[in-house]
């Protein structure tokens, strides 16, 4: 290995510097991933001990389970609704903050704070906010009894989940999109104004095309994240219920593996989910990412 930089003429120093990080990534990412794939071909004993190679039996079993397909469908609905909202809402907020409307400066700060709150804490807070008896919806329930009942109505529970996810996604996406908007030179707007474009036209023709890289980044991250990181919210707000209506794939894996002790089934579903997320990201890059003009 030859380096052009005279700073790193020592060939072992770069390797030495990277080793700790590589070790962590391998130990806590690649090994478990590999293990999950490996286990998906074995029938594991719940309490350890000998395991038996079963080939594709696990996959056959999981794929023929209607619960798996239901959880998968819920995952996709959640992914599409929650992640598109989690990008659209911050986009509106970022455009407003960028236009320096009233109170945008304090808002810019306040909007970033939720980034510091853990998913589980958000879940606890939202479980309280959307509590049918003491939460925000309580007055509505007083007027129309039973209209908001996330404990019984699966749709209400799902909506709660989506709202909590969107709320927790606002800070990061807002910061990224606002940064994109701020990097557009001021004269670009002046030129558009001279060309006769009003504020809405400027958003459509100038701002949105120019923040495509940031929009793309937030979309890719949101799509993948909505699949995997919904776990903390589900576990604290709904526990997968009522009647499994909020059991997304990631939660089903947890329930199957750690409550049902079906380690092989959980591993298999993990492998399937992982392949799906990777394929999704690859598709986004292939179909959208390539068309984006990164040049300013």
């Amino acid at each position: 290995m030859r380096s052009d930089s005279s700073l790193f003429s020592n060939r072992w120093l770069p390797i030495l510097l990277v080793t700790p990080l590589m070790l962590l990534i391998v130990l806590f990412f690649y090994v478990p991933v590999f293990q999950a794939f490996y286990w998906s071909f074995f029938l594991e004993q719940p309490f350890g001990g000998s395991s038996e190679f079963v080939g594709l039996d696990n996959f056959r079993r999981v794929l023929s389970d209607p619960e798996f397909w239901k959880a998968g469908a819920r995952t996709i609905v959640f992914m599409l609704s929650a992640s598109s909202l989690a990008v659209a809402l911050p986009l509106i907020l970022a455009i407003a903050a960028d236009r320096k409307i009233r109170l945008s400066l304090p808002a810019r700060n306040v909007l970033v704070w939720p980034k510091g709150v853990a998913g589980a804490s958000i879940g606890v807070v939202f479980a309280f906010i959307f509590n049918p008896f003491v939460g925000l919806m309580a007055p509505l329930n007083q007027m129309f009894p039973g209209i908001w009942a996330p404990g019984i109505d699966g749709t209400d529970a799902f909506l709660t989940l989506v709202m909590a996810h969107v709320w927790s996604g606002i800070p990061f996406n807002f910061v990224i999109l606002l940064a994109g908007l701020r990097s557009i030179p001021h004269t670009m707007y002046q030129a558009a104004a001279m060309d006769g474009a009003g504020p809405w036209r400027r958003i459509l023709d100038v701002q949105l095309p120019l923040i495509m890289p940031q929009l793309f980044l937030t979309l890719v991250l949101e799509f993948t994240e909505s699949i995997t990181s919904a776990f903390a919210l589900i576990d604290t707000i709904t526990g997968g219920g009522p009647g499994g209506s909020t059991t997304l794939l990631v939660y089903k894996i947890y329930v199957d593996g750690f409550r049902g002790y079906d380690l092989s089934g959980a591993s298999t579903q993990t492998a399937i989910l992982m392949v799906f997320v990777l394929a999704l990201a690859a598709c986004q890059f292939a179909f959208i990412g390539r068309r984006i003009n990164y040049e300013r």
Partner: protein
Amino acid sequence: MTAIDSAIRAAAAQIELIGVTKAYDAKTVVIPPMDVVLRPGEFTVILGPSGCGKSTLLQMIAGLERVSGGKIILGGREVQDLEPKHRGCAMVFQNYALYPHMTVAENMAYSLKVAGVSKPDRALRVATVAKMLGLADYLERKPGQLSGGQRQRVAIGRAIIREPGVLLFDEPLSNLDAQLRHDMRIELADLHRRIGATSVFVTHDQVEAMTLADRILILNKGRVEQFDTPKVIYHHPASVFVAKFIGAPPMNILDVTGDGTALRLADGQAVARSTRTGRFQLGIRPEDVAAGPGGPITATIRYREDLGSHEIIEADLCGQQLRIATPFGAEIDASSTLSLSFPTVRLHLFDGETGMAIADAFEEPQAVRQSVKVHL
């Protein structure tokens, strides 16, 4: 005038500023009330150092900046409260401000698209303007694939495609290298001749101002120092500020005192005959200083720059800096002291306090004044 030119030729509008002022608050007044008339079809250059308010003035005409008071009248219409798009101005920006995600053709046609011009009409106009600016081969390229000069042309094309009555330029040449700047200057002058729109060009470069302008408006801290043709501004600067700003190297300004017989430096050397008394500032251009044996004034040479065609000598005259541009082909002895004379007809006298020019300070024969050599 070719067919292309007449197709794009605009009805030039008169620009009238009546008491236009800009102030951010009571203390920070950028532009005190200003009254200026720019005639239809005239090429006006607004010249001044950075921070003198020249860009602000241009943006107020464009409608990108609100006026704090006064009226702006474009082609007989009061426009100071109108949106930019209703004023009939087009603007070329310093950094071009092209839309990076649109092709050259889309960039130029954008204003027409917003205005609802049909697609075939847009294509026709783009083709006309592209041909005029030599951009026909680049219409499908993105701005990122163009050179600086080509981008500049696209920016100009975008401005003239709507046939605006007023064309505004905000330091459009300052991002180009020296050679390209020179070429674009010539192109701009030619373009103005062909299009005929009233043009306002903001710059801090006096060469651009001298070569492009019909009239130069010199701004100092938001106030108009002088508004006249390049020739008058060069030969009869209204103040020390103007005198120092125009010409390269700039005019020498010396502090002198009049004792009734002559204007003298601090050490008593007489530099010019005059019956005036009091403190003055005496101006003489580097190229007007006559260097050679027998001159009554003595200066010490500090530094010499040989530019081939002529030499710039930096000398010390009684503690004050004096620059001398030698005539073409002249050989000056490389000794440390230099004999000089200041031809009276070439002297400019300014008030010692206000810096304003004193008209006809030296009674010069009319004939000499007529034959004043033009320096460019």
